[in-house]
């Protein structure tokens, strides 16, 4: 049946790939280089940056972004955005606090109702997307605005002010605090609970993406939804599950905010959704979907953590932080486009 000469001419017979080329085509490569560069810069210019205590601070800052960057990057690889992710964190904290305060004196009830709420909102985003076929940018912009309003409106209506009442004296508060907002100190290095949550989500998220059938579907629905549907991938369900993941991340982070500060400011969270997206893009996620890495999003979060704290340690004007971020984002997006083209060309 086969005629080898024809196949050879057609390029069907391939050489073994060069391992180096394969590494160069990895989505997280750029973020790894950037993370090392940022580390080196601050190590040189900011003396306190290398102290062990600073490492704990940087890790904490990175984890509060990384917890959300994991599900947000998965969603982006699945080809969608979630502009409601930032305020959803605040919604999670508010719900937990107010349900506990208004209806019971047990924090666990609020915590569980909060989980149900964030998952329901995630499901709503996914369902609207599948139903209306509108771009996720529009759908989640809608949820973003609605949640921003509801956070403020409901909090004012219920507590009379823009922040919630303290729940520090309630039953279960200490256990919840241990779960979401504790810290351990080992040899001067203080590690907050969010770091463990971040690492856990990171491992699970990356494993799911690279090693499971669902992960295969995430790549496929983001890469080409129509092609995925044609081979039997449940596109709408896959995307909805990704939004549920964002809901879960928002719940974790929301509980952390609540149990570390006892009270919640209802106006918080606006703008953070962009930070999560930037972390994912710096980590190698394509804006157009179908390509990226969860590990990269963690590197993106780490760059954030190092930059936000390093600027303070270096006693630079913190106003420049946003400028730095914007520049990083542009560079990362350019690099991703380049890596993608490279990947498409393949290791020849």
């Amino acid at each position, binding site marked *: *049946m*086969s*005629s*080898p000469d*024809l*196949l050879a*001419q*057609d*390029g*069907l*017979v*391939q*050489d*073994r*790939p060069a391992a180096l080329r*394969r590494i160069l085509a990895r989505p997280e490569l750029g973020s790894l280089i950037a993370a090392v560069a940022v580390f080196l810069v601050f190590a040189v210019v900011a003396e306190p940056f290398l102290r062990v205590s600073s490492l704990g601070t940087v890790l904490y800052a990175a984890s509060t972004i990384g917890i959300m960057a994991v599900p947000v990057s998965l969603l982006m690889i699945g080809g969608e955005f979630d502009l409601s992710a930032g305020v959803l964190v605040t919604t999670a904290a508010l719900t937990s606090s107010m349900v506990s305060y208004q209806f019971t004196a047990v924090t666990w009830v609020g915590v569980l109702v909060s989980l149900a709420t964030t998952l329901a909102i995630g499901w709503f985003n996914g369902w609207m997307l599948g139903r209306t076929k509108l771009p996720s940018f529009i759908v989640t912009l809608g949820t973003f605005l609605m949640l921003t309003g509801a956070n403020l409106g409901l909090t004012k209506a219920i507590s009379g002010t823009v922040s919630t009442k303290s729940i520090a004296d309630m039953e279960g508060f200490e256990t919840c605090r241990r779960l979401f907002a504790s810290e351990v100190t080992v040899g001067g290095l203080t590690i907050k609970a969010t770091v463990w949550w971040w690492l856990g989500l990171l491992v699970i998220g990356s494993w799911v993406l690279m*090693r*499971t*059938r669902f*992960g*295969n*579907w995430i*790549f*496929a629905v983001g*890469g*080409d939804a*129509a*092609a*995925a*549907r*044609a*081979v*039997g*991938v*449940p596109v709408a369900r896959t995307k909805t599950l990704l939004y549920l993941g964002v809901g879960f991340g928002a719940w974790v982070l929301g509980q952390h905010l609540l149990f570390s500060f006892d009270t919640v400011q209802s106006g918080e969270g606006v703008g953070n959704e962009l930070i999560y997206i930037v972390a994912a893009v710096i980590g190698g996620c394509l804006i157009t979907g*179908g*390509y990226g890495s969860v590990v990269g999003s963690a590197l993106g979060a780490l760059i954030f953590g190092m930059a936000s704290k390093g600027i303070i340690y270096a006693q630079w004007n913190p106003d420049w932080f946003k400028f730095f971020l914007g520049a990083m984002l542009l560079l990362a997006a350019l690099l991703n486009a380049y890596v*993608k083209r490279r*990947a*498409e*060309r*393949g*290791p*020849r």
Partner: protein
Amino acid sequence: MSGETKIDEAKTDGPMNGELLSLEGVGKSYGTVRALQDVSLTLRAGEISCVLGDNGAGKSTLIKIISGLHRHDEGTYTLEGEEVRFDSPRQALDRGIATVYQDLAVVPLMPVWRNFFLGAEQGLRRWGGLRLDADGMRATTREALAKLGIDLHDVDRPIGTLSGGQRQCVAIARAVHFGAKVLILDEPTAALGVKQSGVVLKYVTAARDAGLGVVLITHNPHHAYLVGDHFTLLKRGRMAGSHPRAEIGLEQLTTEMAGGSDLAELSHELARPGLPDSPSDPLSDSLPDSREERSQP
């Protein structure tokens, strides 16, 4: 090659023997656009049935009905003796109908092996099927491709880095591997050069030899005539002819497809099959073991 005998078998057997699929008076409208009306088609195992027609004739619509992407509004669709009406491509796939679409065949940025197994991923038993058997799937992909004579060592390449013809071949190998009974190909050679078309057509005949029924959509009568056992012509959504191979020659097929206007020019081309400007010629040279298309009238 065994192609010759296969056809003869299919011809001498009774008409019901091995009948996989039949459409009877099928029609479909997109809103007010009547894309298809009163189309009938029968497909047997080990047979290649070609559907020909100009752009917009309704070819893609026809196969989207067969593969469950759209539902027909009129007529009946019978699969292995049972009338069916599919709601999703998944249902058609589960019944053994694999489709290589004109416009949506693969996910370009995903590695070849991930594409190969997309929607039919294998899990590791000891992980309860949760963890992908990545190495197993890589090896299976390589083997399945090798079985059709495609030697692709690096199955980790994004499939987008393969040429159009290679991608079609992978999609065909995939259908054969997953035990499809019916393989539907929407213009697999449309964007390809002569050599690559030849390669793809070879794998189409390999799939047929593996016992699949193949529906081959094309607007190129030369390609169709190289491999087809039956020819259905569509014109503006209606059937304009349906012939078994025995009843029609390449010239007549081309004539019917072209209608009246381009006829003179085409017959002019066909009258000089030996010259390089004839579209059928280089291809048949690159297919030494395909059927003797030029021994026909």
